[in-house]
């Protein structure tokens, strides 16, 4: 046998200059063809036409001073943020707190305690995440309710029917989301169960709620439900809306989770079976962590939809962020400034929805384990 040749590997070289840099990027993305170039020029023109007037109206010429409409009426070329400033409490916290500004610390305290409690859950080195999460999900809602509703230690009572604005939107959406997730997961598992009764019930339940508009659900919960209870039994309108929203939402979550469950390869179930894991352990440790990761975009999508759909509670006479903004702009005091009201509501909605969307993207990335299946 002759001596083997010794193979030396070629060193890596940097790519040619034409493959990098801002000019290359612009050429590849903005001016790659005639239609693309036209599109780029048109977009630049549209931005030029739209952005400066909007900035002028919303910021440069805007009115913020004073406490009534005289300043705004005198300056028609600027937005009237004075209106939002004066009615801020009503739009954010509803009628009771709008009328009792000295009590606003209660919802504010509840909101910021919630933020403070949630922050440690995102800190890598914090060791008691499970206990804290359980506290936030199970105990905290009661504390928050007690605080915002009042009626003890001399706190004036804020009836739930007088909750409104952003406070109501946040309560409806967050409770709906938190309660619908576990229910939706159970329904998704039920729909894929081998037991015909469990499967049948899950399919029936999911299709019932998915086939009904939310507005109908809310209407039924508010108007028809009381007919089935004896006279005098009247349980809370907000609570009824919450139950309706949760059941409705759980059907959508279930379908998003089912999509994830179907994407898990059969081999994962078999490996878990072969190791002797029971059904619930198999689901909890092997299947659901993978399925939920796949379902994150779908689940967050339904959450964002729910956050916005809470506005539909106006059908049963509850005033959420949107409806409260609208109401505030309809009195004679601020008539004509509803554009500002809608923009402000849209801005708050957008911040929360965009935040959820970003968070779900981060979550997907942090859960990525570099595998393909």
């Amino acid at each position, binding site marked *: 046998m002759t001596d083997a040749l010794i193979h030396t590997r070629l060193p890596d070289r940097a790519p040619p200059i034409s493959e990098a840099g801002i000019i290359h990027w612009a050429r590849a993305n903005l001016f790659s063809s005639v239609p693309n170039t036209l599109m780029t020029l048109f977009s630049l023109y549209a931005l030029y036409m739209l952005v400066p007037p909007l900035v002028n109206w919303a910021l440069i010429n805007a009115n913020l001073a004073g406490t009534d409409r005289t300043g705004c009426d005198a300056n028609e070329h600027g937005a009237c943020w004075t209106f939002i400033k004066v009615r801020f409490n009503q739009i954010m916290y509803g009628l009771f707190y709008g009328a009792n500004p000295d009590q606003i610390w209660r919802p504010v305290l509840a909101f910021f305690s919630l933020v403070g409690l949630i922050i440690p859950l995102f800190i890598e080195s914090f060791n008691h995440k499970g206990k804290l999460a359980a506290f936030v999900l199970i105990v905290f809602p009661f504390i928050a309710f007690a605080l915002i509703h009042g009626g003890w230690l001399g706190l004036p009572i804020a009836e739930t029917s007088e909750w409104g604005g952003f406070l109501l939107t946040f309560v409806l959406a967050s409770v709906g989301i938190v309660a619908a997730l576990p229910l939706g997961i159970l329904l998704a598992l039920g729909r894929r169960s081998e037991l015909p009764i469990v499967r049948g019930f899950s399919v029936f339940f999911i299709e019932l709620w998915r086939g009904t508009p939310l507005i109908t659900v809310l209407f039924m919960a508010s108007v028809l439900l009381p007919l089935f209870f004896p006279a005098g039994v009247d349980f809370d309108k907000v609570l009824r809306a919450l139950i309706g929203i949760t059941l409705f939402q759980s059907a959508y979550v279930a379908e998003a989770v089912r999509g994830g469950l179907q994407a898990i390869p059969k081999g*994962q179930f078999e490996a878990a079976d072969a*190791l*002797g894991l029971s059904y619930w352990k198999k689901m909890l440790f092997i299947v659901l*962590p993978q399925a939920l990761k796949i379902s994150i975009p779908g689940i967050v999508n339904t959450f964002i939809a729910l956050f916005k759909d809470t506005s539909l509670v106006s059908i049963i006479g509850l005033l959420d962020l949107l409806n409260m903004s609208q109401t505030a702009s309809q009195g004679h005091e601020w008539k004509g400034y509803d554009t500002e009201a809608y923009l402000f509501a849209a801005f708050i909605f957008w911040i929360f929805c965009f935040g959820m969307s970003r968070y779900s993207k981060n979550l997907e990335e942090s859960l990525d384990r570099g*595998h393909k*299946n």
Partner: protein
Amino acid sequence: MTDTNIEGQAVPQMPKIDKDDCCYSIDIKGLNKWYGTFHVLKDINLQVTKGERIVICGPSGSGKSTLIRCLNRLEEHQEGTIIVDNVELTNDVKNIDKVRREVGMVFQHFNLFPHLSVLENCTLAPIWVRKTPKKEAIADAMKYLERVRIPEQANKYPGQLSGGQQQRVAIARSLCMNPRIMLFDEPTSALDPEMISEVLDVMIDLANSGMTMLCVTHEMGFAKQVADRVIFMDYGEIVEEAAPEEFFNNPKHDRTQLFLSQILAH
């Protein structure tokens, strides 16, 4: 089942065990299985003694994978009895769990849990099925990862490993349950040629340690080296079973001869 004694009271009847049966790790009698109307396993009889190493080969679709998947009830059988480690496999979930705890399985496509690290893959079942304390489970897992020669990968995720490494992790994961029987379902068929030998080395090492093994594989070198018996299946039947020398040098059936000539031709 119960009998009645003289006073007419019910007394539990001892299960009848033939003397010959008592020492088998696996005892299959008259096994038949259908997928719908397709008769996939036909009158299978197979006894495996403790510590025996069996290689099952045959053309694709011959039922060899189905056969070993019946042994831990990944597949249900319709006729016949399967007794694994003195437990009969029936619809009784308790028995199925008992058998699965004692029988390890290695799959063609590894089936590692991609969201768990290598170490977590190995400790999950011992901790949650065997109730081993976590520290002990980790020490055990490291011992087996060393045995399959990849302790340094313990904190990586399966997606970061090569196919051969993943399959060795899968073997370690099964061994962490301290199984008495190991089933291998074409463990090297999905691997790049360069990685087959590292997996076979681990399997040979395991065979030499006295583990009862049933292995569906086309690695005839492995069969010659470690098998006590080679079983050839075709169309759901066991066509021929013999010791490796006999099987390779002097196959009796024409079907076996054809199969061997096809896989050993090149």
